[in-house]
């Protein structure tokens, strides 16, 4: 079982002081310890953006891929080796802009992986431009007169795509977030957590204070997370009160469950040698 010390890496952390990513990093490490993982049992996958560096900061298996492609990469890993616990980390631009096309499909497949989106509602590493979750009217270098389209609602999208685990966390409440990650990893199927992750440098609007004033916990208001309709109503709550916590959860067959021939089997263990293609050749004569 890993300790906090085991999870440390020698890589120098280059996130801005106070960055919301620290809350996610700590929350995730805490989860790994709580769930009693070994370092070699977990694979983390990240995309491009500040979030992507997390592969450097947690001493477990990791694949720092390219922009927007966390989900297909994580899917490929998990499908061939179901013994691995696969957690994808993506940014809001990474997942909701560049990689948006993969989101609904990963949800539809219900592969048993976890996706944690570092949603700071701005492009940070490229020094401040709008993203799909930037608020309408948000002024950035690329939108000096304010972002024109309304913000995308990832929670609602996940719900209408029949995602089997939909949650939202806040990097400013690490303990609560860690609890969500525990639930997400334990969930059998595709688990999605959108995390409010304040960008202290480029998001002057959605700050820690801004969120702290607004967020409240669904579990404190008797939210029934088995009620999709109610969850959908909650997902539209935005303004003075913004819910965090588990919106929706249900158990459904995973993609691998339908692959009766490989169920639970790690294809990585199968030899490449001595495959007998004679029956196929016979059928072609």
């Amino acid at each position, binding site marked *: 079982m890993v300790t906090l010390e085991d999870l440390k890496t020698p890589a120098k952390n280059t996130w801005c002081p106070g960055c919301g990513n620290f809350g996610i990093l700590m929350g995730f490490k805490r989860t790994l310890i709580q769930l009693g993982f070994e370092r070699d049992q977990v694979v983390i996958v990240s995309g491009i953006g500040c979030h992507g560096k997390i592969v450097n900061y947690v001493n477990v298996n990791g694949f720092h891929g390219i922009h927007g*492609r966390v989900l297909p990469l994580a899917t490929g890993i998990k499908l061939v080796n179901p013994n691995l616990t696969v957690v994808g980390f993506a940014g809001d631009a990474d997942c909701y802009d560049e990689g948006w096309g993969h989101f609904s499909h990963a949800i539809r497949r219900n592969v048993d992986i976890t996706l944690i989106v570092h949603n700071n509602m701005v492009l940070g590493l490229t020094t401040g431009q709008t993203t799909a979750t930037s608020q309408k009217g948000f002024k950035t270098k690329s939108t000096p007169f304010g972002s024109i389209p309304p913000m995308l609602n990832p929670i609602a999208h996940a719900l209408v795509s029949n995602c089997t685990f939909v949650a939202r966390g806040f990097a400013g409440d690490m303990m609560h977030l860690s609890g969500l990650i525990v639930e997400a990893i334990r969930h059998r199927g595709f688990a999605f957590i959108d995390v409010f992750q304040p960008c202290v440098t480029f998001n002057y609007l959605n700050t820690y204070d801004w969120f702290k004033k607004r967020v409240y916990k669904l579990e404190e208001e008797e939210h029934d997370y088995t009620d999709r309709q109610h969850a959908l109503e909650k997902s539209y709550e935005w303004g003075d009160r913004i819910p965090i916590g588990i919106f929706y959860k249900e158990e459904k067959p995973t993609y691998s469950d339908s692959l009766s021939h490989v169920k639970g089997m790690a294809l990585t263990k199968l030899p490449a040698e001595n495959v007998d*293609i004679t029956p196929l050749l016979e059928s072609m*004569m």
Partner: protein
Amino acid sequence: MIVNKISVLIGGEAGAGITRSGFLFAKACLRGGLHVFGANDYQSLIRGGRNFYIARVDTEEIYSQADTIDLLLALNKETILLHKDELVPGGGVVYDAEEIALKAEELNRDDLKLYSIPLRGIVKELEGDLIMRNTVALGAAMGLLDYDLDILNGGLRDTFKPKVAELNVNAAKMGYDYAQKHYAESFAYRLKKTGAAGKRKIFLTGNEAVGLGAIQAGCKFYAAYPMTPATGVLHFMAPLDREYDMIVIQTESEIAAINMVAGAFFAGTRAMTATSGGGFCLMSEGLGMTAMTETPAVIMLAQRPGPSTGLPTYSGQGDLRFAIHASQGEFPRVVIAPGDVEECFYKTVDAFNLAEKFQIPVIIITDKYLVESHGVVEPFDPNRIRIDRGLLLTEDEYVGEEEYKRYKFTDEGVSPRAMPGMKGAVVRTSANEHDEHGYTTDDPELTTKMMDKRFKKLDVLIKELENYEPTKLYGPEEADATILGWGSTKGPIKEAMKLLSEEELKINYLQIIYLSPFPVANVQRILKSAKKTVVVENNKTSQLSSLIREHLLMTIDHKILQYNGRPFNPGELSQRIKEVL
């Protein structure tokens, strides 16, 4: 009387079962001990249009379609009008005069034999589906050619479910009987079983051969988005997943496909994807990622004419430079161009071995003509198969003196590759420049060292490829002219050489199978003594010539290029070769 030498074209609307009929005709000939080649031609639509399949039959080995047609099986009028001028004098046309009103001035050929068969009438009599007209026509063709109908029946029974098969057998018989009764001894061509009948040969497309090669190589994960002409691999693999413990997944895009393949290979499973030019564009970024992360990858790129959508159901060779250079930055890769179905199989196995041994992406470049045409080949020999997984660590536990380093510097540039999940190892991989542990870096020295590490593999790879037959020479070592080509032009070139040898022209042909890294030594050895060089390619700018210029500082004397979406016909090609000699 011409025996066992015929080119048959069956044509009709899309959805009329044209390819299947052509395939069944060819297979019946193959089972009778003859050599066959089958090529299809279709438009990008679901119903209507003009589809055709050419089945060429001979007693000797053949490698492509012929220039002319001897027998036309026309399921619609357009087929006749479109192909009548390709028919030889005395050529036959099987059609249904009750459905097709053919005026003499429309045909404008008085040297053809018209064989009207009541295709629709027979199907109606059998109370069968109209699509069965094609089987009646097949039966009629067998009747005209006086061939053994039982061989065709065998094919029908292999293809259809019992009830439908018997209906088709009856339909073929009625077509056969009608032709024999009304047109006995009229047609100058005959087909006869030979002593080689029953010899075990396989008849398959390039797509099927690539799929078979992947399965033989131990590929357990196939991810792809449908795109003509590569879709055949997906169709081939999908029903076999249970039998071969594979996962075959249709992805939301080619971007997803290449990333899933990278994930699967990273996890330790042999994986593959296939696409055409447009999809390969989308894969380009992922391709670079596999190179930077040193994750093996196998991609089949089946070309069609571009730019952009171009001619989506036709053939071309315009993507060679693209395959060699796709994606930003510099990295070693392998580009292999099989030239026939046999090479499609064996080279796909090679692709997996090279990808894992060198931890690099391998692109198998083919085209529509190669992957959708049917060729005959001896059953693949399992004794020729060698699996080389390179420095993949397959033990359950990592025991090293030091912590596992995914990108450990080694003499040959290749680092031992642990699978995530291996006890005691943390496998960290990164598309950013990285250190030996996989941590991101922007250190200038380390950056140089890592780039050098990746390129060290290239030196070893170049030597290694000498064992992989990177080029093949056909014909005499010394010749008056040397033809150079790559990929699917192999068939037409070999056919053209047959024709040219009849005219006692001394010609040889160098097929270049590995195009990246370019087999400089092999090509140089042949070109040094070549008197005249002729490059044959299905593209506009002669990309092979430019590669030869780049690597050998040699200028090709003549370029024979065709970029109309169609493969070279051997007669035409031999003419064009003669013109430049």
